[in-house]
């Protein structure tokens, strides 16, 4: 593959934000992908925290190996409750890494547990979305992309407390 092709790929992504989504549910991955695409995001969806780390090029010691993802990922959105590595553990690994500690991370959870929300925010998550995911969640994402990693917010969670 020549340099021209690689460059073209970067250019194509110039005006598109690339989001990495993690959820063990195939239904939720389909929903997240479609929701994100309505806002013209480029989406990579994986089914586990370990696959996410692999994609990001993070090995066991969080030293990054060569990965195109490093220049590319604008936001990471992950389910909290997953078999194997939880969304919280993934969040921690991302925030401990050199390459991705400033990448905004959003957590999705089916349970409205205040202590969980606080723990995630303290660990550096940008926000926690209550499932099921809806269009209103996605329209709020752009503000997270431009916010610095040090300022967290709970406004979206509080405003979108749909309890079914």
């Amino acid at each position: 593959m020549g340099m021209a092709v690689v460059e073209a790929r970067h250019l194509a992504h110039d005006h598109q934000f690339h989001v990495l989504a993690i959820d063990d549910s195939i239904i939720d991955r389909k929903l997240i992908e479609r929701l994100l695409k309505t806002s013209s995001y480029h989406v990579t969806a994986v089914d586990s925290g370990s696959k996410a780390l692999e994609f990001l090029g993070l090995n066991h010691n969080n030293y990054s190996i060569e990965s195109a993802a490093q220049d590319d990922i604008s936001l990471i959105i992950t389910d909290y409750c997953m078999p194997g590595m939880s969304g919280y553990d993934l969040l921690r690994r991302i925030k401990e890494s050199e390459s991705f500690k400033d990448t905004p991370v959003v957590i999705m959870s089916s349970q409205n547990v205040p202590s969980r929300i606080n723990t995630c925010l303290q660990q550096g998550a940008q926000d926690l979305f209550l499932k099921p995911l809806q269009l209103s969640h996605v329209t709020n994402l752009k503000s997270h992309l431009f916010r610095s990693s040090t300022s967290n917010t709970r406004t979206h969670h509080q405003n979108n407390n749909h309890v079914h």
Partner: protein
Amino acid sequence: MDVIQMQRTWVEYTKSLYREGFLDSQFAQLQLLQDESNPDFVVEVVSLFFEDSERLLNELTKVIDQQQGVDFKKVDAHVHQLKGSSSSIGAQRVKNACVAFRSFCDEQNIEGSLRCLHQVKQEYFLVKNKLENLFSLERKIVAAGGSVPTEELNFL
């Protein structure tokens, strides 16, 4: 039935599904996500839901049937998954049945769990049947040259 009649039937049938609690507003979210560039989105997600749910229901039946003692952690994990996916597509009655199921899992109550499994299966097959009817009607409308009148669902 001509296209207009089929469209009217579709609207009434859809409204009844919401009214009777089979579907909630999350299903409307799915319908909003369907457009000319993603014309089959709802059918695709719901098909995934059908496959995944039947897998989970089979697993649940196996786990609860164990003679050597029920692994409630496993049962709870499966019900949690089913609760999540039914919530994501707006299958309200299935979701509610899962919520009830989980409390029996917490109590490690085998009788209660068996009853709940039966209830969840019942709700699942009911909504599956309803949605298949709906999709069948949609196919007929499209085949007759019409379009599915989702804009008429403004009561949501």
